């Protein structure tokens, strides 16, 4: 008996300790949980609910309209244009900035001179205020006084009206987008490249990978797998979220040629104050992000298991 009691005592205190540990844990987590609920969960739930209403800011009452907003979205020419433009923009900016980032990273990695200078030069746009730099680009792209067209004129080429014509505006914005994000990708690739053990290259050479391109295919590309996957997802997500340059430079124009998803949501929700309709658009935007995330996990599960 006595032995049982003496054994139960420490067990009790262990249980009590676990309870107090859980209590303290709750206390530490609680502020985060409350804020997460207030500023993430509740708003997301509200957006989903609002998407089924005809709520407009300024009007007191609203009613549920079922899928009416979504039915309207399918035929809304502005929204379709906006989805298409966002796709085109992402289809240009993501691949170009990824390839450029990888290329620059590999050139810098194999270079010995002025590495930190080059890294700074390419990374500088990431640390710059984008609204401010967009203004500079507007000057660069200016059809009559801008340096880019002046340069083209020197070699006898007629310069386009970069941001002013509906045929070129999306490409001009894409150039700014690539300029802005290539350095970010470069830094991520540089980190991935430095993590590759040198011996692997020596081993590949022994195995007959003579040219540097062979070594790239045999060692660099597979070893960069996880980095590349991450860079791809973040690049697409960031491209889908393009807003600053559009708002600053074109306001969606000319003629809706640069209307992109977040800009359309902004216009509907915060300028025309049609919150219900804008909420339905936001749900579509969220779904796109979910699909991108899901694809990343799928690919991550499927392959890239080297480490």
């Amino acid at each position: 008996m006595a032995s049982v009691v003496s054994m139960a005592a420490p067990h009790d205190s262990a249980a009590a300790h676990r309870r107090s540990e859980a209590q303290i844990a709750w206390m530490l987590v609680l502020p985060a949980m409350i804020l997460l609920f207030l500023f993430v969960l509740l708003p997301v739930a509200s957006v989903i609910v609002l998407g089924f209403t005809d709520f407009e800011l300024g009007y007191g009452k609203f009613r549920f309209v079922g899928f009416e907003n979504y039915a309207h979205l399918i035929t809304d020419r502005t929204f379709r244009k906006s989805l298409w433009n966002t796709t085109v923009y992402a289809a240009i900016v993501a691949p170009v900035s990824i390839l450029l980032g990888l290329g620059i990273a590999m050139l810098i990695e194999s270079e010995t001179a002025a590495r930190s200078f080059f890294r700074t030069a390419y990374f500088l746009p990431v640390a710059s205020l984008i609204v401010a730099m967009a203004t500079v680009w507007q000057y660069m792209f200016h059809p009559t006084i801008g340096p880019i067209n002046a340069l083209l004129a020197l070699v006898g080429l007629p310069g386009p009206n970069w941001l002013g014509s509906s045929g070129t505006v999306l490409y001009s914005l894409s150039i700014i987008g690539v300029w802005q994000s290539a350095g970010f990708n470069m830094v991520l690739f540089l980190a991935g490249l430095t993590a590759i053990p040198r011996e692997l290259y020596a081993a590949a050479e022994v195995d007959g990978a003579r040219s540097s391109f062979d070594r790239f295919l045999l060692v660099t590309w597979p070893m960069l797998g996880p980095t590349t996957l991450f860079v791809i997802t973040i690049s697409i997500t960031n491209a889908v979220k393009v807003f600053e340059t559009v708002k600053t430079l074109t306001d969606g124009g000319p003629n809706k040629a640069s209307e992109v998803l977040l800009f359309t949501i902004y216009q509907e929700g915060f300028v025309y104050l049609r919150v219900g309709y804008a909420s339905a658009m936001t749900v579509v935007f969220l779904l796109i992000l979910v699909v991108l995330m899901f694809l990343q996990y799928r690919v991550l599960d499927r392959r890239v298991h080297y480490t």
Partner: protein
Amino acid sequence: MMTSAFSLGRIIRLTLLSLGAIVFLSPYVFMISTAGKAQSDIFTSSLSLIPAHLTYVENFAKALSRVPMARLLWNGVVVCGLIFFFQVLVAIPCAYAMAKLRFGAARAMMVLVMLGLLVPIHATALPLYVAFDRASLLNSYAALVAPFAISVFAIFMFLQFFRAMPDDLIHAARLDGMSEIGIVARVIVPNAWPAVTAFAIFSVVAHWNDLYWPLIVISKQDYATPPLGLMYFRAAEAGDDYGALMAATLMITLPLVAAFLLAQKRFVEGITMTGLKG
């Protein structure tokens, strides 16, 4: 093989890198050059980099007289500072509890964090705007800061960092009679310094540059952040006064760029650390 003086490959490599660098830096060069050009200069010689008549003083004076630069920068510092302070204050205890303490809701909390990572401000802005409007909180620091006081990204990042911390460190502190809050303040935070700096850079760069949310909740110059202030200036400046515009642009870009140039290594480390783990 790699370092042999100037092989053909190396010449090509350096040429490519230099040409690219020129292209990437050209907006800065033109910004600095145009900020010193007189209006007549801008219209006649867009390719000459050295202004014919140095008008830096006039352009900067003009920009300063129309943009409340000190106000904008101050707002930027206050907003970014408050956001960062609350993010860290909320995220560190939470991440510590999730990494090192046993409690029932740990898994649920993890799911919440992973879900939260998916949701940007653009998705929550509509209901938040309606709520701030109802609470008459538009045009205030509170509106600018509150939605960002919680950063799931911070929780996620600190969680990764704390998990890698040895348990012995915490056990030793407990044996010394430290409370859990004491452990967070005196053991965890000092040891989490690299993660805190990395996150600071990520957070400040993100919120200093953010236009979307300030554009929505702020309509008065008094609370404008740097990007928003520049938008106002652009809107007011109907003509092509690029000299003054570039002067304003230069002043507003300078603080973050200067910070980057001074603490370059930390910046790159910070972006890699936060980027790769995100």
